[in-house]
């Protein structure tokens, strides 16, 4: 089955089918969400920018959450050894991100001169890193559990 969206889809046919389901579900729910927002807009004055940003966020969060919770990201992690190796890799990747981002920010953007500046930079970095780590960790854990069950 060829479609223009193929470039966004994985090669594996099970993963491809799952992704198509998630995108279709997200698209349909987004349609309902937009109808709800249109009705709500008759009673409350919601700005168009707010509506658009909320719509984008809604779609990304829904599709992302379905993908993470489905356990289809780490398809080869089925043993305890592979799980620990992948977890170690995830920790290394997030730590490297924190170090590289902080260095690049300090060198090319600005060197925070106040405690407030540092607090702002580290707070933002902490939030992004935590979100990245948690989503990857949940995905890894779900994938491992799913694969382990399939091995027996």
């Amino acid at each position, binding site marked *: 089955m060829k479609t223009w969206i193929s470039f966004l889809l994985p*090669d*594996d*046919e*099970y*993963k491809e089918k799952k992704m198509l389901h998630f995108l279709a579900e997200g698209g349909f729910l987004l349609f309902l969400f937009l109808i709800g927002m249109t009705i709500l807009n008759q009673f409350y004055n919601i700005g168009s920018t707010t509506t658009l940003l909320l719509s984008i966020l809604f779609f990304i969060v829904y599709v992302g959450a379905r993908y993470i919770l489905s356990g*289809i990201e780490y*398809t*080869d992690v*089925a043993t305890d050894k592979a799980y620990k190796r992948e977890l170690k890799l995830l920790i290394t990747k997030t730590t490297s991100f924190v170090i590289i981002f902080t260095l690049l920010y300090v060198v090319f953007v600005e060197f925070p001169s106040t405690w407030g500046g540092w607090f702002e930079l580290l707070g933002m970095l902490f939030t992004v890193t935590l979100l990245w780590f948690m989503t990857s960790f949940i995905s890894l854990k779900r*994938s491992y559990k*799913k*694969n382990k069950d*399939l*091995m027996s």
Partner: protein
Amino acid sequence: MKNNVKITRIKRSMTQEQLARKVGVTRQTIGLIEKGEYNPTLLLCISIAKALDKTLDELFWEVEDE
């Protein structure tokens, strides 16, 4: 869908990973097919049958006990 993929693969001393690599899917997909939790496309069924040197009937046709 019940099938004979797992038993045939084991008889051929092949791992899920080896079969997956041979037919170009992930190990997870092979596991799901073996457990009957995913119905593969006809194209993938043919690839699996070729990889295991069996016919589609032998792997995927359900035979009712009399």
